[in-house]
């Protein structure tokens, strides 16, 4: 099973879309709220150089934004 991490903020609609997508496909994920978790924010910037959420890690692959096609490909969803 893929190790999925989503960096998000509480008001981010695209983050909610991504989480809904994971739930619909029974994909377990870890959520890190970069609005309150400074360590997670630093980690997100260090790994991806991004400040726009969602940033999603599928194992070591980075997905910027809610890119349904890329997520499906990396997660093996038809």
């Amino acid at each position: 099973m893929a190790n999925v991490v989503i960096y998000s903020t509480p008001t981010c609609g695209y983050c909610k879309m991504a989480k809904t997508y994971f739930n619909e496909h029974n994909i377990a994920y870890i959520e890190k709220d970069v609005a309150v978790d400074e360590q997670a924010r630093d980690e997100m910037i260090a790994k991806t150089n991004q400040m726009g959420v969602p940033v999603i890690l599928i194992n070591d692959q980075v997905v910027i934004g809610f890119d349904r096609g890329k997520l499906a490909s990396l997660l093996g969803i038809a």
Partner: protein
Amino acid sequence: MENVFDLIIVGSGAGGLSAALYAGRYRMRVVVFGDHFGGYTAVAGPIGNYPGYVEVDGFDLMMTMKEQAEALGTIIKDEKVVGVTQNDGCFSVTTEDGKEYSAGSIIFAPGTERRQLGLPNEKELTSKGVHYCATCDGPAYSGKIVAMIGGGDSSVKGVNLVAEYAKKTYLITRSKELRAEPINFERMQKLVDEGRVEIVLENQVVEIVGTNKLEKIVLAQPLHGSQDLVLDGVFIEIGSRPRSELARSLGVTLDEKGHILAGTTMETNVPGVFAAGDIVSGTFKQSITAAAQGAVAATAAYQYHKMHGNRCGTRPESPV
């Protein structure tokens, strides 16, 4: 005939999904296409002016609309329509993955897309300090210094959200005054009084500076003695442009800015073609108005369908 419907709706925002709900209740066979599920409503964050809710999250509101439409048999596809044609009253759309769908009527509710400043470096630094969605990325700037560019209601609402997190927020507009709902303006004024927000009128960004991340912006006029303003993030809210290329290709009449000209029943100049939401000329761009227009457009499409039938040929099990 598998991909033949009574109604195709382009756009899955408040206008499109409200139209889908109504058309579903009219027992029309409906398919909705949307490459940005929920439109701007889904990324609006908390919404306090949608009747029936004291406050509702925009994404949750759109998920409920989707659920309502799907319960009536509407098919909703997260796909982008890239082409549309008409053959003797039968409309056909092609999606990005090359599939084709047809219907006897069509509602355009694709919304708009955000305008950019058009400055060098803007694209390179997008999501690296330059942002277009304050509700999405604003909270990531907890304890930082940011600026909002634009003087409309969306900018003021954005400032109110970002300032909950940021140490200092500038609102910069080239206008002489702000155009915001009084309730949003009052909320921002409180933040100004607390020193957390600073309003900068009649000024504009002329340069975005940074390598791999935003370092500063350069203003046309000095602010506190300098044109340079060092920032961690900048949010751009300077309006939007209509996504009307598909409607234009069908011969739908647009206004000078590219919005669709629609009548009181949301009909366009092309029979069988209707419009709803932010794409419509002269519209007050709100979720509630988009939803209302979607209801009207679906009703007009139903009347059109009853009068003309489905020019693509109706499937035998169609209840209409």
